[in-house]
């Protein structure tokens, strides 16, 4: 009896005592490793099987599982340490570089946007503290953060009179501002505006990526929710193989956990609640709407995933 066993070091023919009698080296190492990983035949294995159709194939294949455990263990003992180390490092290095896919950009952009929101918020609050005493009316009336930064710059560059009128005041009770103070606040405010602009650029880029690489998800969920779903699941692949009931709750992990542990109310939806098809509905209809949207997203994710990977 002869055995055919492929490991990282080549495709080996073994005798009845499980000793290697001959070895075919892989012509194309990377392709061979891919084939072995996915349970397909390498060219070397095909050739060995042609030469000897009786030979017992040891490696797991889709249509072939080697059942005799004792023999199999004696056979895999043939993998030598120095080969195992060198080849495995090479495979892992290429797996690592291949693992960086477009999902990575989406996931990192979503996180970067969240970080930037936090930072911008903090920076703007600081601006309000800093400039507030000189123009309290602006700080009080303009609650939108970005608008406040823009108008502060305007006031610092062109004076406050016009703005003051527009806000409905004749006179300010703010303190008089010195030139150096105005300069310092102005350059600080410009940094913040720069952040707002960069954030817009990032969002536009994200939208482009979503439209190009995840067109069906983008259409059903919108680019922002779609991207956050991918980030929350960890990858497009995970969404594609996930039941739609899980998609429905992505982003609600905390509430779900609470429910399972302490029996609080079951969450009806996760971050898809921000979608117009749910947010616009009455509370009582939201559960159903969420289920429907999650179903659609599930189909969209499969189309997007299998479209490129097959």
């Amino acid at each position, binding site marked *: 009896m002869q055995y055919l066993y*492929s*490991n*990282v070091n080549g495709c080996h023919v073994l005798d009845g005592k499980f000793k290697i009698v001959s070895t075919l080296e892989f012509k194309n190492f990377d392709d061979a*490793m891919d084939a*072995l*990983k*996915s*349970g397909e035949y390498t060219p070397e294995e095909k050739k060995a099987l042609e030469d000897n159709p009786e030979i017992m194939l040891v*490696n*797991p294949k889709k249509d072939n599982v080697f059942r005799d*455990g*004792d023999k*199999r*263990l004696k056979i*895999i*003992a*043939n*993998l*030598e*340490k120095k080969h*195992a*180390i060198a*080849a*495995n*490092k090479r*495979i*892992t*290095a290429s*797996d*690592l570089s291949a*693992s*960086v896919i477009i999902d990575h950009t989406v996931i990192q952009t979503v996180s970067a946007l969240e970080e930037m929101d936090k930072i911008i918020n903090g920076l703007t609050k600081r601006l309000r503290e800093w400039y507030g005493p000189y123009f309290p009316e602006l700080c009080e009336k303009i609650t939108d953060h970005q608008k406040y930064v823009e108008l502060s710059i305007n006031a610092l560059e062109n004076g406050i009179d016009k703005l003051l009128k527009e806000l409905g005041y004749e006179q300010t009770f703010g303190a008089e501002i010195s030139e150096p103070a105005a300069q310092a606040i102005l350059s600080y405010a410009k940094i913040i505006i720069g952040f707002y602009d960069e954030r817009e650029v990032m969002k536009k880029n994200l939208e482009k990526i979503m439209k190009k690489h995840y067109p069906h998800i983008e259409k059903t969920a919108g680019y922002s929710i779609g991207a956050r779903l991918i980030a929350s699941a960890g990858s497009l692949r995970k969404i594609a193989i996930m039941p739609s009931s899980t998609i429905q709750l992505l982003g609600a992990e905390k509430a779900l*956990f609470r429910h*399972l*542990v302490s029996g609080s109310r079951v969450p009806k939806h996760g971050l898809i609640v921000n979608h117009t098809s749910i947010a616009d509905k009455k509370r009582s209809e939201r559960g159903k709407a969420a289920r429907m949207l999650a179903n659609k997203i599930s189909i969209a994710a499969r189309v997007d995933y299998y479209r490129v990977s097959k």
Partner: protein
Amino acid sequence: MQNVIIDKKRIWVKAVYDKNPDFDENVDKKMDGFYRSWDARRSKLAAAMLKGVEPKIDKGANILYLGASHGYTCSYVSDIIGKSGLIYAIDFAPRVVRDLWFLCEKRKNMIPIMGDASQPQTYFHRVGLCDFIFQDVAQKNQVDIFLKNLDMFVKPNGLGMLAIKSRSIDISRKPQAVFNECRNVIESKTKLIDYKLLSPYEKDHCIFYVQKTQ
């Protein structure tokens, strides 16, 4: 085990590779060399040993380690088995395999493999015969994963250790109920040598130490 010192509630492993810490651990000079202190709150293997489990991990052993993560526990096993041993360190998360990769540059008895432990057929051609398997993957089907890999790679009468986190199997059930159920499956397929809860080092975790039957 050689090169391991257990002293009340602390545990050290003699450094084989070098005395510079890999994980900011303390390194003490003792009579016969440098010893790395091992934190039982970061390593389930260390916790198990402090709870009295006595795994037989020999110098020169071949180890299959599933769920290697950044390699904290692996690095101690690497010192225990010494330069003649070998660890196949498997994890499926690219971010941690990147760290493992650099750890393996220094620890030449460790091999980083990015693979899914629930699909041992995908790395069958990359792993040789093993004496010992350690698994800590925090997955729902972790018992099943363990038994598959034990069957596939561990020699007859080889040893295995499985860390179970009850919450990853079922967070709504009592940990003890989950552990008992795992124990029944494990006892039906292997010879159970030891079983311990890992408190106070880990909450809701237990460890099974088994021998492969055939």
